[in-house]
């Protein structure tokens, strides 16, 4: 019995170690892309913590680091085709979140569109 448990644990470890670049990962339209805050692997795992921490600082203390704002994330990562991080199977946020089956709460309130494109449209 204990052997079986050990085997399962080992299997589980292998599975989770390989999970970062696993088979069948969706092709994502990353917009402008590139490394900005941290390397993509770190961001893939931790972006939500970063967003949570920074949102509290921004809302309550008025700290607005332009680089680390959600608006700036979208500015780069929105698709160059439709200026959006949502809406398509390969959109930057939606694509990955669909794959991971995690609900995104942000865009009920926040704009999911590249703000520079919105400004252009207004003028």
């Amino acid at each position, binding site marked *: 019995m204990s052997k079986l448990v050990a085997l399962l644990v080992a299997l589980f470890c292998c599975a989770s170690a390989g999970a970062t670049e696993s088979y069948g990962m969706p092709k994502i339209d990353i917009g402008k892309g590139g490394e900005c805050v941290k390397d993509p692997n770190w961001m893939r795992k931790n972006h939500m913590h970063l967003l949570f921490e920074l949102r509290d600082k921004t809302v309550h203390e008025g700290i607005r680091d332009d680089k680390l704002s959600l608006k700036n994330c979208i500015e780069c990562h929105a698709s160059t085709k439709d200026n959006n991080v949502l809406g398509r199977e390969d959109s930057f946020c939606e694509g990955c979140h669909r794959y991971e089956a995690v609900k995104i709460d942000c865009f*009920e309130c926040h704009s999911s569109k590249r703000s520079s494109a919105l400004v252009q449209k207004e003028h």
Partner: protein
Amino acid sequence: MNDTNVQRRQFLKTSVGAAAVAIAPGMLLFDMAHGKTEAVSNKVRWGMLIDTANCADGCNDCVNACNKENGLSGGLSPTDSQWIRKIELKDKLTGRELSLPMMCQHCENPPCVDVCPTGASFGRADGIVLVDKHLCIGCRYCMMACPYKARSFVHEALHDQKPDVPRGKGTVESCTMCVHRVDKGLQPACAEACPNKSILFGNLNDPESEISRKIRTVASIQVRADLGLNTGVRYQGL
């Protein structure tokens, strides 16, 4: 010197810096933190002085500017959000008529903050009263408690919000004193839009600011001053 000016300069400095970085591509493009990296402090208390004598009857420019800036629909049904509204007043005894804009008064002791169960309603150190919509559960107790009826509840799903002004169904919202503009060193949209310059925005804690100098010399009152809330918005000629 006026704090708005200080902030404006700071903003210009960082923008120029950012532009310089952009000119030399490939260098430091994202490593430099720019924007406002310091927390707001209570050395500043943002406030407004509204001169009702200059506020034209029937003029809605402040309201329209607010709607445009914050992405409000401008609808007037009882379920639509109105962050700022024009009130027409008539003294019941003397018959004197006047008109003024009414919005969140950004109290120092805001009842909405006291009653909020989750702390979603809060006052920033610089006196701006906001709703943290990440925490708001939509109980509407703050709307019951506000003496100025300044708050609105978002009754249905919204689309195409402004990137700087997130708003969403099921949460309460109100005038933010255009916090996203103020943090950039700009004035609130309503103050900027008023054709008669009847809305004076500035730092009440700086004795040398224009607003402080003016409230020292002209008579101004807080609406429902009897409640002892110490509002950040004051009215002249009421």
